[in-house]
């Protein structure tokens, strides 16, 4: 994350944050990088950086996925060029199955330093304690018991009550 010189005259810096499916392979990452590079070069611009943030637990499910992989691409293209529309089309049509969400923003500050949340590889399931609960839910007798079918039941007493009710 080095300090890059200011963009050349007539060029505008942008960044594209992409939220992809959690099962993103290396080949697919390379494919996205190539597609962006192609679109930017076509508009006489250049890619500054392309980063894979890693896997994250999403704050809400997106397309029925609880997890996702974030990618951040930064590039500079001439102002008012066709590149942004090309990228929009690319995300919506070509990469529709891989990229769940995307967001392109103009970069105003000359500094390229930024802070991002820690991924699951860096800090596995920290913070909210959901990971702890999930892990310890399986311990028999502590919170719940797992029946033969693999479903979670609260306790045997509750089962009996339900039978009585039924």
């Amino acid at each position, binding site marked *: 994350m080095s300090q890059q010189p200011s963009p050349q005259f007539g060029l505008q810096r942008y960044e594209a944050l992409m939220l992809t499916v959690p099962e993103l392979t290396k080949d697919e990452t390379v494919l996205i990088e190539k597609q962006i590079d192609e679109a930017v070069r076509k508009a006489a611009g250049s890619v500054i950086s392309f980063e894979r943030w890693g896997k994250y637990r999403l704050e*809400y499910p997106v397309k029925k996925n609880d997890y996702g992989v974030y990618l951040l691409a930064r590039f500079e293209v001439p102002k008012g060029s066709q590149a942004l529309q090309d990228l929009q089309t690319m995300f919506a049509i070509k990469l529709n199955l891989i990229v769940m969400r995307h967001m392109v*923003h103009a970069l105003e500050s000359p500094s390229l330093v930024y802070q991002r*949340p820690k991924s699951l590889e860096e800090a596995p399931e920290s913070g909210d304690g959901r990971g702890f609960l999930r892990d310890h839910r399986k311990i028999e007798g502590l919170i719940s018991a797992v029946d033969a079918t693999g479903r979670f039941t609260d306790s045997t007493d509750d089962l009996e009550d339900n039978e009585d009710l039924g």
Partner: protein
Amino acid sequence: MTKKIKLKISARLVKKRTRRGQGAGGKHCRFCVSLEQLSQLDYKNTALLRSFLTERGKILPARISGNCSRHQRYMGQEIKKARVMALLPYTTQNV
């Protein structure tokens, strides 16, 4: 009785005076004070933005966060961007 009431009022005033005297002063917008903080105010910096959310995921009002109206607006916009990208919650599930 009257004595008691007078005492209560005076005690409250004394407290108020001491609070003023301690240099707490009014609230200051932290982004107006520090340019470094302002440069960190970004939709990707969820650790900072999370401090401006309630437990339910709502945006804190300016009277609580202490931001000036300009930076409160900017901060709200950044939180909304982060929500679109699923970096921050719109709301939390019932606890």
